[in-house]
């Protein structure tokens, strides 16, 4: 497992307490899990995602991610309608390990409340939180 100073945490993303990241992409917000999460989980074998059209609130479970020996729930960092899911993860769940911020993205959300994005953590705040864990 990586040390905190070895983690790759891009500056321009918003981070949630449960280790999801969110990124504004035009009108919508793209969501995935960060380097800390994928490193902790180990080799990911399966990702379960919601259906497009599903409407979920901030904090709702939107899916699960599985390694060989563990399952973790994925929580919405912001509320909204799921407008796209990354279908490549079905065949290649390992993309979440190798490229958690790019090819390993999970869902695109049309947010109900744009302010929720601002209430997430910056990289610095998130790092502080990790150190406290």
């Amino acid at each position, binding site marked *: 497992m990586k040390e905190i100073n070895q983690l790759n945490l891009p500056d321009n993303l918003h981070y949630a307490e449960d280790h999801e990241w969110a990124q504004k992409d035009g009108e919508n917000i793209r969501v995935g899990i960060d380097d800390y999460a994928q490193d902790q989980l180990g080799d990911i*074998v*399966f990702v379960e995602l919601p259906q497009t059209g599903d409407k979920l609130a901030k904090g709702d479970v939107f899916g699960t991610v*599985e390694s*060989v*020996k*563990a*399952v973790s729930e994925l929580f919405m960092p912001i509320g909204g309608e799921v407008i796209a899911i990354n279908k490549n993860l079905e065949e290649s769940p390992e993309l979440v390990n190798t490229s958690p911020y790019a090819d390993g993205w999970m869902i695109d959300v049309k947010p109900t409340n744009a302010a929720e994005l601002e209430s997430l953590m910056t990289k610095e705040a998130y790092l502080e939180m990790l150190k406290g864990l």
Partner: protein
Amino acid sequence: MRYLPHTKEDVDAMLATVGVGNLDDLFATIPKDCCCRLDMDLPEAKTEWELNDHMDNLAAHMAVTPEYKVYLGAGSYDHFVPAAARYVLSRGEFVTSYTPYQPEISQGTLQAIYEYQTLASRLMGTEVATASHYDGSTALAEALLMAIRITGKKRVALSATVHPLHRRVVRTYFDPPGYDLIELPYLADGRTDFDVIDTLDDLAAVAVQSPNFFGCIEDLKSAANRAHAKDALLVASFTEPLAYGLLKSPGSLDADVVCGEGQSLGLPRSFGGPGLGMLGSRMKFVRSLPGRLVGRTKDIDGRNGFVLTLATREQHIRREKATSNICTNNSLCATTAAVYMASLGGTGFRELSQLNHDKAEYLKGQLAQAGFSAPFTGPTFNEFVIRFPDDFDDIYHRLLNKKIIAGLPLAKYYPELSDCTLLCVTETATREDMDDLVKEVQS
């Protein structure tokens, strides 16, 4: 005692290491008000030889072949098991090992179960089969719960021709969550009336057994069409897997989930257990399947090997969200079934299946000639229902006195068939036995 190797010297040395004076002191941390089971009122220990006599005596008070001719099926079948099959299954490495959680030293069990999964899925006509469940009834209950999970609907239509005891178990499982169980009646020919399905909404599954409890072969393709028209899954069950040596497999007839009792595949009847719950489905439902699955993989040196896989469905990981609570399954029974299927082979399995069918048809024909009618006229496999005219009890008990158990009287399970019995004939009945039965019934 031969299973307890400690000598007095061993015990003394070990107590000294632990730092207590005697064995009772080991339990000093248990509050005194919890310890009271000191003198258990149980029989004194028997020597191995006394135990043999005791058990021989109990076993002698049982009606079994050859003293009795037992024409009973109804979910538990008499088939020949080769000595070679029994022999390999007695090997201590299969019998005394645990669940293969440490795969490097469990490849015997793992390959044996992978082979079972493969042969079972070929028999049932499914893309995948699990490593086994407790028996046919619990496999059916789990299959229906699986359909409920997959479709998100809470209603199931279950045919009245599914084994009555399997239906009872399903009702027990369905009671607390309050799922809705609708019964599909049967027609004059002994098969399920599917018309009721057209009137139902929000159906998760339709469950039909074939051959059914009456031995009649159901129209599974028709059942599948009706179920799918209602966006429900077809769960096809069986109690006599040997039938599929001859009949089209349920999977090939569009069943989505196939389940049943595998006891016929080399397991002794053993007064009803342990049996073998078989379960298979389409590959797209694999993550909803309950129970263990063995998968093929490679080791770090590139050798082929097997492991338990997709364990994230199971209780030890998913806990309250698991697809089932199952932990111990019936692994040795599944291995037994694989050994049996392998000893028969595809050619032998078909031949034996044909023989079962033909023997039962012979008895049916002879009884018909003697004036005993079969109320259900459709094709059957190795079981069928016969009506005894006049006094049913009188005939049944007369035969019993001649040490012939003439099937299972149906009065208890189907009051409308209280003058009928369910007869089963397998390859173990000779023509001579059957002629004798016909003669006795007539006299």
